[in-house]
């Protein structure tokens, strides 16, 4: 049961991460095409800033969760690693729980934010792309990050029980 939750969460996180990778390549290509077209033909690509800025949201928001799977979010382990064990696990659990609550709130708030962009009908400046789907990616990214943190917490407690 535990195993399958972890497997599914990690798969979703990895899948999102590839989306982020595709967005990076897309941004690079669009930026280059814009520079080439501007310097060779004197015609800049209309709305480059619009598109790549929104792709930027995908790059970062979609990579948040998988970076946590890889334990890539920087933390100071210098002190906590020296704390003897039952206490260390306890602290780690508390820190994890705080993280879960925080990103749950974050998902909820970014959802409201996305909903609001839909209600107002917020569009990008030049190309008039609706911003809602992109704001939605921040919600998805935060929600999956919350899940990954939850799996981390499960793993910590399971490990402690097995001892």
């Amino acid at each position, binding site marked *: 049961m535990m195993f399958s939750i972890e497997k599914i969460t990690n798969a979703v996180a990895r899948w999102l991460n590839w989306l982020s990778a595709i967005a990076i390549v897309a941004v690079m290509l669009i930026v280059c095409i814009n520079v080439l077209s501007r310097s060779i033909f004197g015609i800049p690509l209309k709305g480059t800033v619009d598109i790549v*800025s929104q792709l930027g949201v995908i*790059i970062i928001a979609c990579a948040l969760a998988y970076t946590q799977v890889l334990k890539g979010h920087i933390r100071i382990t*210098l002190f906590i690693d020296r704390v003897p064990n039952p206490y260390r696990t306890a602290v780690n659990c508390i820190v994890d729980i705080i993280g879960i609550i925080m990103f749950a709130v974050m998902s909820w708030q970014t959802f409201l934010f996305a909903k609001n962009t839909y209600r107002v009908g917020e569009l990008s400046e030049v190309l008039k792309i609706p911003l809602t789907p992109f704001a939605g990616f921040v919600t998805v990214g935060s929600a999956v990050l919350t899940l990954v943190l939850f799996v981390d917490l499960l793993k910590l407690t399971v490990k402690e029980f097995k001892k």
Partner: protein
Amino acid sequence: MSPELAGACGIIIMVLLMILGMPIAFSMILVGFMGFSYLTSLDGGLFLLSDSFYYQFSSYTMLVIPLFVFMGEIAFHSGISKRIYKTAHAWLGFIPGGLAVATIGACAGFAAICGSSTATAATMGTVGLPEMRKHNYDPAFATGTVAAGGTLGILIPPSIVLIIYGIQTELSIGKLFIAGIVPGLLLSGLFTAMIIAMCLLKPSLGSPIPGTGFKEKIKALSGTIEMLLLFILVIGGLLKGFFTPTEAAGIGAAGAIVIGVVKRSLSIKGFKKALQGTTRTSSMVLIILASAMIFSKFLTASGLPQGLAEWVGSLNASPYIILLCIMGIYLAGGCIMDPLSFLIITIDIFFPMITKAGFDPIWFGVIIVILLEAGSITPPVGLNVYVIKGIAHDVDLHTIFKGIFPFLGAMLIGLLVLILFPDIVLFLPGLVK
């Protein structure tokens, strides 16, 4: 509780959370959100959360980070580092401590296409270290060289740290980049001088290798010439105002891919790995930046940074005393936590003090980079040292730290020179409009 006191309490709680092992970004979000809600309203705090995340992630300027990271990752995975090292090897190997000198030279070269200090240390570590070990170089000396050389990655443009400093203080990234060039070369020169001096005093540290002929030297250049061209295109285009920083980074990444494909040195696997490395580093840096935005809104609302700057100003202390104190704080901060995160957290507090004391903000950016570099190779938390340890498993941490001390000395000399002669930093940016 007065707003200033709330700000101070917030900083203490944040540091406490970090010490307890909460990721740096998460600590800043939590404290920033709670503090801002306390000073304004809960609705204000909640809105700040979503607003900061979305707008930070969708900022056009911020895209320069993933793109420059991507350029460095591509360079790393397409074996460019090996070719740069080969060139440096052929040209500098005959000097006393030749392989170490070549490593520094190669680090400086790689730094010109990579903006990260750990990536430079890792890249040159995997290429330079085995070679030095093969020629019986002293382990402390060899590992120290690579760890120190890696720090050039964030001084010689492109530089992730200078980009972030520029974004946070609203300075021109192009000017900051060009300001890093001469100090970067100066530091490379000081490192080289230190190596030669050490090897002349104690030849057993590392011996020179037989010199190569002129023909071979020219041949060795072929491996690096295209990267040099890419560097000139990217940085030159940026300075001429031909590209925005984001465009320069995009062209750089695309150029690195083209070179890798033409030279047949970039595999599909390498490309995928480069992408993964990029998403990971970018999300790690950007979430810290977004969190810092939340935290800094709270700090600004508390009035603490402005208050501190005014208080320091009212002390009537010599600007150099203030500079020295701030430098000490950065050096100490870099010792216990990731230098980049430390910069992001603290810049809002110290930047007003420095400008109020009359120092040039561009010059200060370069000074900060060198301080953070020094922090990244000093115990107990020296990121570069951990990276090197990961490559040289048989050398213990203590030995690596021992090997680093001469280079720390060289950095301090470099800092002193730049403080005494700020024009070394400001001359080139002054030429750019």
